[in-house]
């Protein structure tokens, strides 16, 4: 019965293919063999153009125009004025001395966030992957559990943790039960920043753990057996065998993490009620959002200029990542 069904299916596919062959042959005669592939790429290229390339171009258009009009064509050309406004500063390390102090506050906040977040996520993901890589009971369960937050929406993540950390949140309820005085974590700069990083680590580590776990499992088992015969201690095996061989994966994770960290916005925005306390958790994407849509002013030019600057940084990081990925393939 099964054989019959597959034979029928085969016949069907053959039939469809022979039907397709006629117009394809006609097209090849009409356009030339080499040009036919582009015809098939065309629908995707059009969509990609409308939703990716066109917005980039429009964004650059906004960045070099001023005013509050929505349509690029209605906006006066101002050249690099928006960029000048963003970058003019007496002392970059003190945002207060900059013309756009909020922008520079956001840059420094992002800078510190990226630093802490990258290191913390990388370490947590690596340790988790190393543990999950061992033959242990419930490995599948833990793997799924660590990956689960990745599936959630950033807003949901922000809300869950807010309920947990709020003045009347779960954590304080717990403290109260233990007789510890309650703490308003999200209103203290240090704690708020700490929890933004913590939430981000919790949110994303599952994804990176998965990449590292795949890398660990690609290391041939017999290398570990050879190392055991070669009298390598656990520590030495980790540092001399595992980590060097995981190197390419670690690099990919590092770059991806940096790119994603620079883009921090939604979960932090929800968690900290818009970057609070004050501007302690105000990041670049938040700055762009606030300039463009945060008030009736609609400073689209400034927002777009900031976007373009951020885009350049991300592009550089992406190029590095692509290069590394290619290098990894060569090994």
């Amino acid at each position, binding site marked *: 019965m099964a054989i019959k069904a597959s034979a029928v299916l085969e016949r069907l596919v053959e039939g469809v293919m022979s039907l397709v062959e006629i117009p394809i042959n006609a097209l090849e005669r009409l356009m030339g063999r080499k040009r036919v592939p582009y015809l098939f790429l065309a629908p995707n290229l059009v969509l990609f153009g409308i939703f990716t390339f066109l917005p980039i171009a429009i964004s650059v258009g906004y960045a070099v125009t001023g005013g509050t009009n929505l349509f690029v064509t209605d906006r006066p050309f101002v050249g690099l004025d928006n960029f000048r406004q963003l970058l003019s500063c007496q002392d970059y390390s003190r945002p207060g001395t900059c013309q756009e102090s909020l922008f520079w506050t956001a840059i420094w906040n992002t800078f510190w966030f990226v630093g802490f977040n990258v290191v913390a996520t990388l370490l947590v993901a690596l340790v988790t992957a190393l543990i999950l890589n061992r033959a242990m009971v419930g490995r599948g369960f833990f793997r799924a559990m660590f990956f689960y937050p990745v599936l959630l929406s950033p807003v949901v993540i922000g809300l869950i943790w807010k309920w947990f950390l709020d003045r009347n949140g779960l954590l304080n309820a717990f403290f109260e039960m233990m007789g510890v005085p309650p703490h308003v974590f999200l209103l203290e700069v240090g704690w708020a920043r700490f929890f933004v990083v913590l939430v981000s680590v919790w949110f994303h580590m599952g994804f990176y753990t998965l990449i590292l776990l795949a890398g660990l499992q690609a290391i*041939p088992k*017999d*290398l570990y*057996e*050879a*190392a*055991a*015969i*070669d*009298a*390598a*201690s656990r520590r*030495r095996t980790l540092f*001399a*065998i595992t980590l*060097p*061989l995981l*190197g390419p994966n670690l690099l990919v994770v590092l770059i991806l993490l940096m790119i994603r960290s620079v883009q921090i916005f939604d979960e932090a925005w929800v968690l900290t009620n818009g970057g609070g306390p004050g501007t302690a958790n105000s990041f670049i994407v938040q700055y762009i959002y606030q300039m463009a849509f945060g008030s009736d002013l609609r400073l689209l030019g400034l927002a777009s200029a900031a976007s373009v600057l951020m885009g350049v940084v991300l592009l550089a990081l992406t190029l590095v990542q692509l290069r590394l990925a290619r290098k990894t393939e060569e*090994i």
Partner: protein
Amino acid sequence: MGELKLSSLNKAFGAVHVLHDIDLSVKDGEFVVFVGPSGCGKSTLLRIIAGLEDVTSGRIEIGGRDVGQLSPAERKIAMVFQSYALYPHMSVRKNLAFGLENLKFKRSEIDARIAEAARMLAIEPYLDRKPRQLSGGQRQRVAIGRAIVREPDIFLFDEPLSNLDAALRVQTRAEITRLHQQIKTTMIYVTHDQVEAMTMADKIVILRAGRVEQVGSPLELFDYPRNLFVAGFLGSPRMNIVRASIAGIGPEGASIDLGHGAVLPCDVDPAAVRPGQRVLAGIRPAHFQRVEEGGVPFVVQYYESLGTETYVYGALAETQEPIIVHETGHFAPPSGTRLAIAPMPGRLHVFDPDSELAIARRDAGQRRGAVHGN
């Protein structure tokens, strides 16, 4: 030093019993080959000796000390893996040095040992290359080099030639044999290739389904297989097996009836058989000869000429049992040719069809070496 003694070794993976009561003694300096079909447990046995697998029960001694609880590193063994298992991110030199560094050897001693091993294996030009920059044969040498620098009591080889092409395999086979003669260290070598076993071993251990079928020198096993399995496993083409019966027992010993009235003397112990007993006769292709009279009629189907030798494929005329006959030199019998063939004197093996064991020979007492197994 490099003596190895396994006593009542058992290994089970869960409910699957893969090794049954293995007993084996290996003398210092011996080259022992574990051979058997895939899944017979030979690699598992090697890994147990290495300490990469633990035993379910039984005892392992190396150089007289019980190593059952020792880590691989403490057993003074070195292993060459089928996949070579070279550290891909380290240079050849670093691959060779890694184990010695872990054992806290002095730098000068490490360098000296690497230089010596590199010279012995002719890998000096590649010392600073990464494994991926080497050919399969070169990687193989590096893997052997990594074992040599350790100066172990026992070398363990796990099918080390299976990733090499045929020509390189023959060459490396000879090199490993030469290496053994040079350093005279105990070597245990796992293969499924009976030619490797025959050509390299001082002692062959034939395994099937987790049991030792027979232990002995290559020629002992070839000449005196203990059962049908060993008889069929060693030798290529395989030994011919035909149904036969004991024709009679006279003053000169027993005779065997191969059918068609071909009654030939055979050297089974007359006390071990009775007239009329049904048996299986085993004759290797090379141990048939063409005879003028008294042979068994054989009908040629086709032949393969290899130049120096010819394999003639056909069947016994009466029973249609397939037979391969080996002839030296050129021989081109047309299909359908009838030949009379007979086993060479003393080259007929007789097996019990039920137990598949060889029936005792009259010269059994003259045989050297031990016969193990169930």
